[in-house]
């Protein structure tokens, strides 16, 4: 993350909101988190009868998605290593 803030703060890359892409090419995998969180919130807001249950259930779904994605990534990495 140090590199990211360095790029934003230095003159090497002039980031302009909405005009230029965000310099996150080294940390793109972290963008999985807000995407999964948004999917969890909207899905549970639609599915739950009571909105009071949404925060807890959305957090549960968010953790489940992340754990499964990490497990799938680990399994695929292991498979690639075995095949190589």
């Amino acid at each position: 993350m140090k590199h990211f803030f360095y790029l934003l703060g230095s003159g090497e890359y002039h980031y302009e909101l909405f005009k230029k892409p965000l310099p996150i090419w080294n940390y793109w995998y972290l963008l999985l988190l807000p995407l999964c969180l948004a999917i969890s919130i909207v899905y549970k807001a639609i599915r739950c009868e009571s909105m009071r249950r949404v925060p807890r259930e959305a957090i549960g779904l968010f953790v489940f998605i992340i754990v499964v994605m990490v497990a799938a990534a680990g399994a695929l990495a292991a498979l690639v290593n075995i095949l190589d």
Partner: protein
Amino acid sequence: MSSQSSSSVPAPIVALATWVVPGSGYWLIGQRARALTVGITILSLFVLGLVIGGTKVVDLPPGVLSSPVNAVSQKPWFVGQILAGPITLLTASVGRSEDYFPSHSRVNEIGTLYTAVAGMLNLLAIIDAAYRAGHDGGAR
């Protein structure tokens, strides 16, 4: 948190309102907490996609009115993006300016993914809001 009022708003109006402004269909049938939760989340996801990849991640396929099937087959992700509402068309028209730089590689893919997922989540909201309006008047 959700309001328990009944509604006489027709389901097609609720569906259209949800497409125009994500979450607004729930508001029309009296479920304001659900409306704010869904609307703010979908719009935040869409805007975050634009922040990550730049405005040019939303690119209107050429000839979308004359030959829509051919145009959409070139850029199928636009189907997902347009489901987020008129904000997609506004973004596409703004992004045509030469002041906006196209992104490439992963950053472009992630920005496109965010905007398209926002649209597909809005499709879920459209279907659900219309169903609630048609079946129980938003009493759930």
